[in-house]
């Protein structure tokens, strides 16, 4: 069984006046108590206006069907960083970061098409043996009968070494990639990873410096199948401003990092919370195929994507006015009982497990979705070959964020 929802939060979620309900509070995600708040929104106010939050006023879209409608309405619901981009937190206009996920057509389409080939079926097939080799090396190096943080030793390690390969970035510096990724999404706060935006800009400048070196090497060489070479030679990207290059780097680093990392961690946790499913998996490893998308649904590594209305938009009997912020809560749509059977249960052999919202839908759908699945699939194949059991031996710690739905510490022990 899954851990029961904190009773107090069930009560608070049920009794707070609807117009004062704020599902964006990052503490709800850090403490893993977001579920009853979204259950109430889906039931009573699927299109909901929150007038006051630490991110300012915003609309919440919480059901599967309404989220799908918003995903398809990209002409009215803009992703452009000029309007605030794709996450609930507005950035200072002077610090805006153009990147293709935070652009509208036609520029979005042109830049996306430059990097898309890296995850085309032919290229994925080539990456498969690299991923497997890395996964084996990481798993073989894990201690037995000793408590360690799965997130650090496996989830981060596998995703950064993959990213370094995609960028053809020096493997020995791969941990810089996860550091930059964490800095890119951290909420500034005293004592936090990032205390203010100046610090973040300094980290971005360091990142840009490292990548400019690679760019300069590759722009003068023949095109190669790595992301930097592709950007340096791509028609729509070779004349990017440094700021645009920086933005797209942040996109590719965060996109390739946080999401897969947190699904790798989530999988171990969910199987421990659901021993019957873990037994099913051990008895039939072929279920990895359907388990992988189920892990991605159940974790929902990005809790939301944000849009900004550029014209009035009618949805669910409400009118969203031009200029207003719209938050599509994937984490809620993935638990919508009208779209997914028994959505609060982790079931590794669902008939159609890929119909979840974690990758988004429409023109901004995750470019790397098949690569993410491939990494999880290979990792689980190699885990099952080696370890009959990975035991979670302590409480997971989670990210303080309404955007990245992450696990920062997962204490585990491998008996042996």
């Amino acid at each position: 069984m899954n851990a029961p929802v904190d009773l107090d939060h069930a009560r608070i979620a049920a009794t707070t006046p609807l117009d004062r309900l704020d599902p964006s509070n990052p503490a709800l995600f850090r403490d893993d108590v977001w579920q009853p708040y979204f259950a109430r929104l889906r039931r009573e106010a699927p299109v909901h206006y929150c007038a006051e939050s630490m991110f300012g006023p915003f609309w919440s879209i919480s059901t599967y069907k309404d989220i799908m409608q918003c995903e398809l309405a990209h002409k009215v619901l803009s992703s452009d960083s000029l309007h605030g981009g794709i996450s609930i937190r507005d950035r200072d206009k002077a610090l805006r970061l153009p990147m293709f996920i935070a652009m509208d057509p036609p520029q979005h389409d042109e830049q996306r098409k430059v990097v898309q080939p890296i995850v085309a079926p032919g290229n994925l097939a080539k990456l498969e043996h690299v991923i497997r080799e890395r996964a084996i090396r990481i798993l073989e190096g894990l201690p037995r009968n000793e408590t360690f943080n799965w997130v650090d030793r496996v989830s981060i390690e596998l995703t950064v070494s993959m990213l370094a390969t995609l960028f053809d970035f020096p493997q020995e510096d791969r941990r810089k990639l996860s550091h930059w990724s964490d800095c890119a999404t951290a909420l500034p706060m005293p004592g936090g990873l990032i205390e203010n935006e100046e610090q973040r800009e300094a980290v971005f400048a360091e990142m840009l410096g490292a990548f400019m070196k690679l760019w300069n090497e590759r722009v003068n060489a023949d095109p190669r199948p790595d992301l930097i070479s592709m950007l340096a030679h791509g028609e729509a990207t070779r004349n990017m401003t440094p700021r645009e290059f920086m933005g797209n780097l942040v996109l590719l680093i965060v996109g390739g990092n946080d999401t897969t990392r947190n699904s790798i961690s989530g999988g171990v946790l969910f199987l421990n919370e659901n021993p019957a499913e873990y037994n099913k998996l051990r008895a039939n490893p072929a279920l990895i195929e359907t388990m992988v998308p189920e892990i991605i649904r159940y974790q929902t590594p990005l809790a939301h994507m944000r849009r900004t209305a550029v014209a009035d938009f009618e949805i669910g009997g409400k009118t969203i006015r031009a200029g207003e912020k719209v938050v599509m809560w994937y984490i809620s749509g993935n638990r919508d009982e009208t779209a997914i059977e028994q959505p609060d249960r982790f079931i590794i052999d669902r008939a159609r497990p890929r119909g979840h919202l974690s990758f988004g839908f429409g023109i901004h759908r995750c470019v790397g979705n098949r690569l993410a699945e491939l990494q999880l699939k290979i990792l689980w194949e190699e885990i099952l070959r080696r370890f009959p059991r990975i035991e979670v031996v302590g409480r997971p710690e989670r990210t303080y964020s309404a955007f990245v739905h992450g696990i920062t510490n997962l204490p585990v022990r491998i008996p042996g």
Partner: protein
Amino acid sequence: MPQVTYIEHDGTEHRIALEAGKSVMQGAVDNAIPGIDADCGGECACATCHVYVDEAWLAQCGTPGEQEASMLSFAATAAPNSRLSCQITMSPALDGLIVRMPEAQH
């Protein structure tokens, strides 16, 4: 009922009868034909029901709408005869339709 033939990337053929009004994607899903994923369930929002329409049937199937063309433009395996099968509605005029699947859906 009108018939559709789906040809997998490895050449395996599946011939089914598909009720007029249903989409070519639905026919594949209902009959568990491999090679069509249809992650979004027919909303024209993911491009994982991508097929190549046999040249002889191209005109009969019509042309992709704006959203479909956008989604197809992101598929590295797309060709001039590519369509999203959720956007092709079966009709008596399409009896005998042949579609082929790409190497993989993504």
